[in-house]
């Protein structure tokens, strides 16, 4: 059976070609993950050691006020950011799809930010929101001396300024994904809906949004990864402040790894994040897999 042999050979060749990448994946990712988990179970401070202390690092993590604030911030930021980005991105895409006149302006206000790093976005918004020379000062100079917009320096409001900046950063990406989805919808469906007498908002709500399920899922996954990794924006905009009011988990990990020299606590925090993400992603992967298999049948 030369054909079978040929196929085995080519599969072997493909395997060989991929093996360096596989090696890197196993050693670097899995190795580092395993090492992180292990360190989180030791009493390591500045340098790694191997004194096993069980879950003590986790206990002190849960009791750590800064960690609690970080997790709460992530929950608030994550949900607001996801909802606002998806909604704003979708509305922008609809506006462009309906050929509003300001198409180019919209594009540059929202699509270009995505090509900048979160650091630049953070600095721009830090400047804009700074009460002494940003939006507040501008409006006051325009003749409204009692205007107040100082959220960035208020402990109870600062997390929302992060949401603002991040939504501005990400809405363009969502818009691009949604626009591709909208443009893929058959013209005839719109015609049929017009003959049925459906107002456009009703078509979007009842027909188009259900059709864009895949686009929404793609955008949501991309946004969710940037929520978990959220670090640079917090550093650039507020550096976690005022106080610890805008701290986030990834920043907690980085600070304890490099500045505070507390390897045990940092790795415990990292492992907690990993477990949380895995608990969310694993069922989703299983579901996707099953759906893909069902689609093949």
């Amino acid at each position, binding site marked *: 059976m030369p054909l079978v042999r040929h196929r085995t050979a080519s599969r072997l060749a493909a395997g060989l070609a991929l093996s360096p990448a596989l090696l890197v994946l196993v050693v670097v990712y899995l190795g580092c993950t395993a090492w992180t988990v292990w360190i989180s179970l030791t009493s390591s401070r500045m340098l790694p050691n191997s004194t096993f202390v069980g879950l003590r690092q986790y206990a002190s993590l849960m009791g750590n006020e800064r960690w609690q604030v970080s997790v709460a911030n992530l929950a608030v930021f994550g949900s607001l950011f996801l909802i606002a980005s998806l909604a704003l991105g979708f509305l922008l895409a609809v506006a462009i799809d309906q050929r509003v006149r300001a198409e180019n302006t919209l594009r540059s206000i929202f699509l270009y930010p995505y090509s900048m790093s979160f650091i630049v976005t953070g600095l721009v918004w830090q400047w804009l929101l700074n009460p002494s020379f940003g939006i507040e000062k501008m409006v006051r100079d325009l003749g409204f001396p009692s205007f107040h917009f100082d959220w960035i320096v208020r402990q109870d409001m600062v997390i929302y300024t992060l949401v603002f900046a991040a939504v501005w950063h990400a809405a363009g990406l969502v818009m691009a994904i949604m626009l591709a989805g909208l443009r893929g919808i*058959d013209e*005839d*469906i719109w*015609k*049929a*809906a*017009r*003959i*049925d*007498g*459906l*107002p456009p908002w*009703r078509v979007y709500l*009842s*027909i188009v949004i*259900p*059709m864009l399920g895949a686009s929404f899922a793609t955008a949501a996954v991309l946004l969710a990864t940037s929520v978990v990794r959220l670090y640079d924006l917090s550093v650039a905009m507020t550096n976690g402040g005022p106080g610890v009011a805008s701290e986030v988990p990834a920043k907690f990990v980085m600070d304890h790894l490099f500045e505070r020299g507390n390897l045990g606590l940092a790795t415990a925090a990292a492992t907690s994040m990993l477990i949380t993400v895995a608990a969310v992603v694993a069922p989703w992967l299983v579901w996707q897999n099953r759906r893909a298999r069902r689609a093949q049948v």
Partner: protein
Amino acid sequence: MGKLCDVSIRGVEISFGAVRVLEKLDLDVAQSEFIVLLGPSGCGKSTLLNAVAGLIDVQAGQIWIGGKNVTWEEPKDRGIAMVFQSYALYPRMTVRGNMSFGLKVAGMPKPEIERRVNAAAATLQITELLDRRPAELSGGQRQRVAIGRALVRDAGVYLFDEPLSNLDAQLRAELRVEIKRLHQRLAATMIYVTHDQIEALTLADRIAVMKDRVIQQLGTPNEVYRRPANRFVASFVGSPAMNFLPGAFAVKEGAPCFLTEGIAIPLSGYAFEAPPQDGAPVELGIRPEHVEAGGEVPAKIEMVEPMGSDQLAWLRVGGHPLSMRLPAEACTVAGEAMQLRLPADKLNLFDAATGRRL
């Protein structure tokens, strides 16, 4: 049952940017008439249908439906229903949802919606599909659902834009019969776009053959087939296609005839619309099934195509190719010579320059 409506298209003009698609087009469709717009791709059939539906605006002219000027009415207020080539079903709704959604949004009471959906589903034999999604249906079933969505609107005028073009030949024949039956049952006015001449000939009360921004001929299938108004209509309608022989018109000993490469074909008995001058260049058209054996025109058989119920023989007359339909049992051998008769009452004569029927 919807009200009976006639449709009147009066001097409609439509352009996309600088491209003129329809030019001063007039078309009157009587109550309960089945009219087919037939023409090659890109001739503006869909554009005209969309204009009747109100999906695109006209630059000039008026559209009347049921004695009312609807030129500036919204599609939903025109008393029309439409079926699209791509089905255009709402993918995330069930069949029932697809058929009922428009009525629901319009605020129709639930029992009435239910009654209409069930009646339409029974007519189209899709009752057992009502709870499925479009993705779970075959092409033929999807198009039935799309027709069902049009039926529940209980409109006076039904518009079809190539509804069968995405289906295979067998399904197409099946649904074609079904649409014809539907027309007889509803007695509604129907405007049906296609580029398939078989559909046009079988379905239509009248056919409007379109090309180059205008209607080339408007007539019953019989008229369009037997007395095409110009060379384009003659070549577009009919399969296998009509034969054309270039030559000249002549009058010999008082009798009109057609001359090509030394062969004279008598034309006495031909019903002239506009007799040409002696010696005028003309084109002679004849359908393959009208060519008869046993006459005075010499020909040579070049090739034979068996077509099941009959066969198509390719001949050469003078220097020109000519096809002829023969019964399946006739024995024909390539290379053989034979004599043909081209009966004058079955011929078509066209002006060589303008293509107009003579």
